[in-house]
């Protein structure tokens, strides 16, 4: 067991990578074997991640040095800085890894029936696993350049999957926009990494954070990194690609794209908190994150209300909910180093980080229900669908749970994280928490619109009766179980999972010490 835990950071990234390239070979022999293989890999990932995350939450940071004689020997004998590729998993990384594996598991189950009629399924599962590799890589890496590499792997795999149903013209269009946006963001990140490398001669995040002395070049790198990652996590006013690509992707992939955006969000937080944690830019970047958060929340939700396409409506909500995370964690970043941090700042960060997990669960669930509706009716237009509650009882229940949770109605988990954000952000500025509550009300309003028009009313005549296939239901059950678990025990979750994550994000010196030794 200790052997597996020691190698877990590398194994978690390597197993899906290996499986991704094995999938097309198995696909040639048997479709059924391929499905079982992919699901087995996703389940192994989930179990390994839970065990590993529990170890990280209780025992602290895990370090893994690739290719070294010993996984923990980060700094070689003759050198003063780490030159090897280092994976560094702290509470926040493990927390994000848990989200990624959970949602991929649900998306994997859902896909079995959802894409059964399509061609090229071997490639679909290859790219699905590569997306998981990209996300876990971004979250576990302790190295700026590998952050860029995994960022690009994630972008390429996601773009190819968005265009999976390429017989729809708009699917290719959405994928094209997504890819152009990521391939602009990618070189900008690389440019920032090159600036940092040229200045300090190292690529390791911990070594860079230790050497950081806040020159103008560092400032330019920070600007490039913040704007590139903020664009990739869908912050207003750089959110235009989000509805375009989320709408046209297959529903299981849209759920994955939500988590992929959150991997960029993680990179944004990691850079602001850890890389630039002891520079004078902290308060300014915190204020910028709060501003992005406010804009995202408000514009996202108001753009969602008039939408007629069910998935487009939900993708505007994804933008809006990302605003809550930016607001909560940005408030924590603003208060970093303040005496108030231990009370309100920490609570704000806990709220924002808890919201990341909640968002992945309920938004993933909502996108999967939207996919179930599309599977039955072959349309996403809300004007054309009605009365689905007559035949799709389980989907209706799942949709209601997701909708109540996203709207922050008690007793669901969305309420718990939003409550933390409202209360703590109120001490930064009361206006912030008033806007946050208003956005929550508008969210409820627009989901009532979806519920009324899609599920209520007389049944549709030209739609075959019955529920969606079992594998799709099971994918939704995985996420619903997560929502119910988090709803019933928010205190336990915050104390044992969210608090270590927030703590490790705020504690820059521990992150540096784990790699640099002293």
């Amino acid at each position, binding site marked *: 067991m200790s052997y597996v835990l020691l190698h877990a950071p590398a194994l978690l990234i390597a197993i899906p990578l290996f499986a991704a390239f094995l999938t097309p070979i198995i696909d040639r022999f048997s479709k059924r074997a391929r499905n079982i293989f992919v699901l087995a890999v996703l389940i192994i990932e989930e179990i390994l991640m839970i065990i590993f995350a529990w170890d990280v939450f209780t025992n602290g940071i895990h370090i893994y040095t690739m290719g070294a004689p010993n996984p923990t020997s980060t700094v070689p004998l003759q050198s003063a800085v780490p030159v090897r590729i280092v994976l560094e998993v702290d509470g926040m990384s493990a927390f994000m890894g848990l989200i990624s594996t959970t949602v991929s598991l649900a998306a994997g189950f859902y896909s079995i029936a959802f894409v059964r009629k399509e061609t090229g399924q071997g490639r679909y599962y290859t790219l699905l696993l590569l997306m998981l590799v990209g996300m876990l890589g971004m979250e576990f890496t302790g190295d700026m*350049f590998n952050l*860029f*590499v995994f960022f*690009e792997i994630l*972008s*390429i795999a996601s*773009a*190819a999957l968005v*265009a999976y149903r*390429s017989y729809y*013209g*708009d699917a*290719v*269009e*959405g*994928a*094209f926009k997504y*890819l*152009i946006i990521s*391939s*602009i963001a*990618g*070189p900008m990140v*690389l*440019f920032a*990494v*090159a600036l940092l*490398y*040229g200045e300090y001669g190292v*690529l390791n995040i911990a070594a860079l954070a230790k050497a950081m002395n806040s020159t103008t070049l560092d400032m330019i790198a920070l600007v490039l990194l913040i704007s590139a990652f903020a664009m990739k996590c869908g912050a207003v006013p750089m959110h235009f690609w989000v*509805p*375009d690509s989320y*709408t*046209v992707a297959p529903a299981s992939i849209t759920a994955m794209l939500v988590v992929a955006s959150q991997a960029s969000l993680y990179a944004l937080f990691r850079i602001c908190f850890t890389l630039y944690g002891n520079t004078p830019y902290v308060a300014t970047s915190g204020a910028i994150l709060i501003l992005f958060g406010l804009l995202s929340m408000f514009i996202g939700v108001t753009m969602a209300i008039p*939408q*007629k396409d069910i998935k487009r409506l939900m993708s505007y909500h994804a933008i809006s909910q990302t605003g809550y995370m930016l607001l909560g964690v940005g408030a924590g970043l603003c208060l970093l180093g303040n005496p108030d941090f231990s009370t309100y700042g920490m609570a704000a960060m806990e709220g924002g980080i808890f919201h990341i997990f909640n968002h992945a669960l309920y938004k993933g669930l909502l996108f999967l229900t939207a996919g179930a509706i599309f599977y039955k009716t072959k349309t996403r237009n809300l004007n054309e669908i009605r009365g689905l509650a007559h035949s799709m009882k389980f989907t209706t229940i799942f949709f209601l749970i997701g909708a109540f949770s996203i709207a922050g109605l008690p007793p669901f988990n969305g309420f718990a994280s939003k409550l933390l954000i409202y209360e703590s952000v109120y001490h930064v500025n009361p206006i912030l928490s008033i806007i946050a509550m208003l956005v929550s009300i508008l969210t409820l309003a627009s989901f009532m619109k979806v519920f009324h028009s899609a599920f209520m009313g007389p049944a549709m005549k030209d739609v075959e009766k019955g529920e969606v296939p079992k594998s799709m239901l099971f994918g939704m059950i995985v996420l619903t179980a997560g929502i119910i678990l988090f709803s019933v025990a928010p205190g336990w979750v915050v104390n044992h999972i969210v608090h270590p994550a927030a703590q490790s994000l705020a504690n820059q010196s521990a992150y540096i010490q784990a790699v640099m030794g002293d």
Partner: protein
Amino acid sequence: MIHNIPYLAAVALAIIGLYAVLFKRNLIKIAIGISILESGVNLFLITLGYRENAVAPIYTNLPEGTSIPEGMTLPVPQALTLTSIVIGVAVLALILSFAVKIYQHYGTLDSREVRGLRK
């Protein structure tokens, strides 16, 4: 001054690339712009590792009298550049294949007309 020319060239390439992405309406030209932008960043990386009168950091048939490692260029930026080029190839191939598909569906490559997803 003469040492700064590669940096200026890198920034100029990046700006040309961004210009193409911002103002050219043809999807293929946007792909070309992204390619130029990537070349600018790659040139910047390579320039970071350059030392004057230095040779490639390879021991095979190293010229006699080269001081190790002062007489060699830095190998790390070159490795980074190579990785970035590989990623660039993959991105470019994907963009071009999307452009072909878009042309099949929409019958145009004008970015002002490729917006069926608006609203």
